């Protein structure tokens, strides 16, 4: 039997359900110091004076650290972007001025968290207020500049143009114009806040236990910042309570903790962020504004060209940015076959929390944009939403997109059919039509989306041609331990995705044994475990990068075991088979009872090697495999190349009714169909789909990080941010199709981010419900107050226009 495709019960669960996980804050030690960070109450202000004397005098306080000391001890983090980003000085603490509410201005280490907080309250900071810019277009006017040395708030600008856009508009039967749309700011907010424990070592270097989810990258940023060699930055992770990309950049706080430890002479310092701090100053998702969008269509309703201007708001610092200015182009035209596109893309800083990768990072903003275009065009041209999609879907695979990406496989029409079956499309269509006649605000909407996985880091060069990044990799080591146990170590940093389980399934399949016989050791460790620069858990890639590394390592180990067994059993290698015998895992001569078990093989190499022939001198039963996907460096001039290896797809349908009394959107039915190629562990994949769906529904109807015009965060606690609860979610009908990827050994595609499908779907369902009321859905966030406003002032007259060029009406 094959373990791939089987819902093996997770190995991780036993410790987690018993409360025996080890999350960073669980590490306790007498004498450990606790860190509290004093943060700016203002979004933009000069720091005139800081007086820390009262705080330092408090008994139990070990030290206070300010920005000036940080600037003296630490170098600014490398900027990824081209000029003027090189002029941005990004230190882990504000020095002369603060540029977002919550930016660290001082840190206190004390014997307890409470004492550290008490001391921080005694620090006296004098600020001189500056004008805050919180709106992206306002920021681009440069009336108030965040990074003065850069001379502008604009951090990146580029034009992505493919095909014959002018020609397509000249020949269009219809041109639909949408002057403005807006994708809102939210974050997936993992339940475990950021945390780290830092210890500056006397022999030089620093040890971290933390929950960073891309430590291979963090090490490369932290080492030069802390003036250390990379190997002196020792990063460990163990259990991580969710990440969704958000935990990629907590290296900023790791640097603060390291410098505090250094100042105390090397005492261990723990920093455990509070939820309010997390919402205020951890990392938000990218906001995006879409201006002057024009869509050309032929007389059948096939989209022939799109042109638009996009402005991305990355908050106060370009930490992982401006990578988001390229990442979106992995899904340039989403699931649609339009070949003529021109997107003028600009990014700006604003006086808000910096953005970080957030589940569906930068692609979901583009996918939402394309879905809104398709959906608004359907409604304005009177075409059924499903037909409109079927006319425009890509149907041939592998498919090379206009910008050189290769969609590996897919069947979007089949997914639509399946989702329609699951939700009862025809019945709901009738009910919606009848309901609207009776005055109900009820609609049904489709959201099609992509979860592009396994990045080609070479795409970073489209953003900045001088960046020394390309390709991708992940690593696995595997050995037969002294007593013959199969031990597997990974370079990944799972935060709930079941890597220990899936890796054991893959190794078990190669060796022909049971996954319970494979021991996957959790925990990332730059000193004692294996890793590569791309190591981590992000960007929907474990099923491809991580498991290909496991698969490769298992094959290498198997090859060594086969040579060893052939020698000892005096048999030809091709006459051997792997499996489980009476004494456990073994290699045997086919059709005989001659066998050698794992213990014996391991013992031969490790304890009893005088029995071995010199021809086996290279057999160690301890192998390492690095998987590298087949990528090339993209053509940066043309902005052309294959940017991701696999394209999982999601198709959701929702039925939504807006209450006439309360304007609350209620989901009456919801279906989600997923295609992530071959399933490794169906139960885990299913769980990821549900999780991504929950995030998207939460973001669509509840969650938003709102600022006032002075840059004060208005939704700074969970009570204000309102993460979705079990009561707000409908039952979700789940379906799956499998179009195996031709580009991976197993046919699996990376998955888990989900492409923001519910955001597109909820917008489409609301469009259907509200079109009759004169509403065009141009935003991604739909809480009751917003729906109330739009119903008071329907926007159709200014939100959309349709130019008909004498051709006949698109057919119904």
């Amino acid at each position, binding site marked *: 039997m094959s373990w791939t495709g089987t819902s093996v019960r997770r190995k991780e669960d036993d410790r987690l359900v*018993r409360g025996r996980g080890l999350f960073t*804050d*669980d590490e306790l030690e007498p004498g450990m110091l606790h860190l509290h960070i004093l943060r700016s109450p203002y979004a933009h202000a000069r720091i005139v004076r800081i007086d820390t004397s009262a705080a330092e005098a408090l008994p139990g306080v070990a030290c206070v650290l300010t920005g000036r000391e940080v600037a003296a001890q630490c170098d600014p983090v490398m900027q990824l972007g081209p000029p003027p980003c090189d002029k941005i000085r990004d230190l882990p603490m504000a020095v002369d001025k603060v540029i977002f509410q919550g930016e660290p201005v001082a840190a206190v280490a004390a014997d307890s968290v409470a004492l550290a907080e008490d001391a921080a309250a005694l620090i006296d900071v004098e600020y001189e207020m500056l004008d805050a810019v919180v709106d992206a277009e306002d920021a681009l006017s440069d009336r108030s500049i965040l990074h003065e040395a850069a001379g502008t708030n604009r951090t990146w600008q580029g034009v992505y143009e493919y095909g014959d856009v002018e020609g397509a508009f000249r020949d269009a039967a219809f041109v639909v114009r949408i002057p403005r749309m807006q994708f809102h700011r939210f974050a997936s907010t*993992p339940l475990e806040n950021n945390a780290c424990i830092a210890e500056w070592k006397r022999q030089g270097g620093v040890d971290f236990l933390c929950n960073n989810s891309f430590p291979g990258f963090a090490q490369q940023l932290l080492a030069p910042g802390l003036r250390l060699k990379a190997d002196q930055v020792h990063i460990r992770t163990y259990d*991580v309570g969710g990440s969704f990309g958000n935990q990629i950049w907590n290296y900023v706080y790791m640097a603060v903790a390291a410098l505090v430890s250094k100042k105390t002479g090397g005492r261990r310092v723990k920093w455990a962020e509070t939820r309010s701090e997390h919402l205020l100053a951890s990392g938000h998702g990218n906001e995006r504004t879409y201006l002057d969008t024009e869509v050309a269509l032929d007389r059948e309703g096939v989209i022939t060209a799109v042109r638009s201007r996009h402005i991305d708001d990355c908050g106060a610092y370009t930490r992982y940015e401006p990578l988001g200015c390229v990442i979106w182009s992995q899904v340039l035209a989403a699931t649609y076959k339009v070949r003529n596109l021109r997107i003028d893309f600009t990014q700006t800083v604003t006086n808000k929390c910096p953005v970080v990768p957030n589940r569906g990072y930068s692609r979901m903003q583009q996918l939402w944009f394309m879905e809104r275009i398709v959906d608004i065009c359907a409604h304005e041209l009177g075409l059924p939403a499903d037909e409109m999609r079927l006319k425009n879907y890509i149907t041939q695979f592998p498919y090379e997109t206009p910008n050189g990406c290769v969609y590996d496989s897919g069947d979007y029409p089949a997914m639509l059919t399946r989702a329609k079956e699951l939700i009862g499309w025809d019945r709901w269509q009738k009910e919606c039509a009848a309901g609207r006649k009776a005055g109900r605000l009820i609609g049904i909407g489709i959201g099609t989306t992509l979860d592009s996985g396994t990045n080609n880091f070479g795409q970073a060069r489209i953003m900045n041609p001088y960046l020394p990044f390309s390709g991708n990799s992940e690593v696995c080591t595997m050995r037969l331990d002294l007593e013959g146990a199969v031990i597997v170590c990974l370079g990944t940093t799972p935060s709930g995705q079941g890597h220990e389980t899936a890796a054991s399934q893959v190794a078990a399949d190669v060796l022909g044994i049971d996954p319970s016989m494979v021991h996957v050791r959790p925990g990332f460790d730059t000193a004692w475990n294996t890793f590569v620069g791309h190591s981590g858990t992000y960007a929907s890639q474990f099923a491809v990068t991580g498991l290909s590394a496991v698969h490769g390592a298992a094959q290498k180990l198997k090859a060594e075991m086969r040579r060893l067994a052939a020698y000892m059993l005096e048999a030809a290698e091709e006459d051997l088979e792997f499996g489980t015998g009476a004494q456990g895992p073994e290699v045997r001569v086919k059709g005989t009872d001659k066998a050698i078990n794992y213990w014996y093989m391991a013992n031969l190499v490790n304890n009893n090697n005088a029995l071995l022939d010199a021809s086996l001198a290279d057999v160690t039963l301890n192998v390492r495999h690095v998987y590298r996907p087949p990528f090339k460096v993209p053509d940066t001039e043309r902005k052309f190349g294959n940017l991701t290896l696999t394209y999982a797809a999601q198709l959701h349908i929702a039925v939504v009714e807006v209450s006439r009394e309360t304007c609350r959107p209620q989901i009456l039915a919801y279906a989600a169909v997923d295609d992530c190629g071959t399933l490794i562990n169906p139960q885990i994949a299913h769980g990821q789909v549900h999780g991504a769906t*929950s995030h998207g529904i939460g973001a669509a109807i509840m969650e938003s990080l709102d600022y006032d015009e002075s840059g004060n965060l208005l939704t700074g*606690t969970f009570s204000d941010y309102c993460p979705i609860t079990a*009561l707000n*979610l409908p039952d979700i009908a789940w379906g799956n199709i499998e179009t195996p990827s031709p580009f991976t050994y197993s046919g699996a595609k990376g998955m888990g981010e989900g492409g923001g499908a519910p955001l597109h779907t909820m917008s489409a369902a609301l469009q259907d419900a509200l079109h009759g009321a004169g509403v065009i859905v141009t935003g991604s966030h739909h809480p009751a107050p917003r729906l109330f406003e739009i119903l008071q002032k329907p926007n159709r007259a200014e939100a959309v226009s349709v130019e008909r060029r004498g051709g006949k009406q698109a057919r119904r």
Partner: protein
Amino acid sequence: MSTTEAGGRIAIEVTVNGTRHRREVEPRLLLVQLLREDLRLTGTHIGCDTTYCGACTVIVDGEPVKSCTMLAVQADGAEILTVEGLARDGELHPLQRAFSENHGLQCGYCTPGMLMSAHALLARNPDPDRKQIRKGIQGNLCRCTGYHNIIAAIDAAAAAMREGK
């Protein structure tokens, strides 16, 4: 009875998972801090600071309580059950087993609080319908699972417990 000691500390006595503990605590110490830092029961997690997420839920004298919203001194004399007290003789509680079998956890950070809320729910109502289950865990956030499999797990555990498994 609580008594104030020198240095503003207050002596309390709590029984946690069947073991009695005496401690002298700062009046401002939260119950969750007592459990995690003093008693080293780190299975009870902290996920927010506004009593919203429920990661710190424990059972105090039979009632589910968010232990970040109760002072340790308020728990003086109480019987407390935490996630570490669910398994008996190493054997998983039916709820723990059902969470694993139904993939009711991903990162596992909300899981202890979820288990304790579910435990309280099933003590009140051994046969809840799905809506009652949703209501029973409405004070517990999960950012990974979308709740679907948690609801299925509680449903399965309830059935198993009714059958005495």
